[in-house]
């Protein structure tokens, strides 16, 4: 185990990049993307079986879950009660009690309901789930979710699937400041520099799906995100310089040699 593992829900991981399985039509590409990303935590969704069109190839069979932590989500749930029901169905379907909790009443921006999320998180944590709630970058809410027993908090960078990057780094900073559980930036990351920025600020991990699935070369982008996450984490551990308002010469200011100016005719 390297010196800097991510500990989440009582397990340790070497990768700080998590990926989803959405938007892939081809399990082969999805498998290659997950391998290239190095992700060890992989999300899936729960949906009703289409009774008029039964027969489907199983996503669960397409990946090696001995090597991956399965993280079912409650995407599509608009209320706390719906999320509780889907979480319990997810546990029954997978045998896994980890849940990425999403309570999202708003379809346009897919922004989470903080009150419903907290209520569902309390119930699920009490029911033995390892709860990872998707939230806005709100420090007060994050502390309440920690107190409710969540294993992590997952503030969004920008709206789901928008690829707009980290739009409110100052708010993320308030969530990171004093966090007692891992902070996983989820949603809206578009390019590896977005992931690097989140890790540089001190986020413990990021989760991406669309940025990989909709890249021209998903496998190449997965590799690039893995590097971005590693760069950001290394920079965070190394400690950034303090920004200054004005320039500060890197070379000594004394002992400057006075050379003839070639622009001036002799």
């Amino acid at each position, binding site marked *: 185990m390297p010196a800097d593992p991510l500990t989440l829900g009582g397990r340790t991981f070497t990768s700080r990049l998590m990926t*989803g399985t959405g*938007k892939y039509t081809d399990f082969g590409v999805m498998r290659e993307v997950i391998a290239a990303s190095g992700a060890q935590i992989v999300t899936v969704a*729960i949906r009703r079986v289409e*009774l008029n069109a*039964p027969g489907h190839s199983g996503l669960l069979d397409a990946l090696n879950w001995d090597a991956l932590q399965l993280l*079912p*989500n409650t995407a599509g749930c608009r209320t706390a009660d719906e999320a509780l029901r889907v979480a319990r169905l997810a546990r029954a*379907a*997978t045998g896994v009690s980890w849940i990425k909790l999403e309570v999202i009443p708003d379809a346009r921006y897919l922004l989470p309901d903080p009150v419903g999320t907290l209520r569902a998180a309390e119930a699920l944590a009490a029911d033995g789930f390892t709860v990872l709630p998707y939230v806005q970058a709100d420090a007060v809410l994050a502390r309440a979710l920690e107190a409710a027993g969540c294993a992590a908090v997952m503030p969004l960078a920008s709206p789901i699937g928008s690829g707009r990057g980290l739009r409110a780094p100052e708010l993320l900073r308030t969530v990171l400041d004093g966090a007692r559980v891992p902070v996983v930036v989820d949603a809206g990351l578009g390019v590896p520099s977005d992931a690097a920025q989140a890790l540089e600020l001190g986020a413990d991990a990021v989760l991406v799906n669309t940025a990989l699935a909709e890249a021209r070369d998903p496998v190449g982008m997965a590799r690039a995100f893995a590097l971005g996450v590693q760069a950001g984490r290394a920079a965070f551990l190394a400690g950034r310089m303090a920004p200054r308002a004005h320039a500060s010469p890197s070379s000594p200011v004394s002992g400057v040699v006075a050379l003839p100016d070639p622009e001036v005719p002799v």
Partner: protein
Amino acid sequence: MSAPTLSVNGELHPLRPGLTLLTLLRDLGVDPARVAVAVNNDFYPGARVPDRSLEDHDVIEIVRIIGGG
């Protein structure tokens, strides 16, 4: 009095006498091993769905895993 019905994945389904959870799944063409099932507030892994009898107004959900983020 209306005929007894179930809600199955949000749609009304007739409850004929003697219908059980396993016969319902078989009627629907669903392989239990690939799904999870809720009957009201009871949740079952597909491989361990009990052959319980069903009652008027039971709410049944049959779900599977798909790709998601």
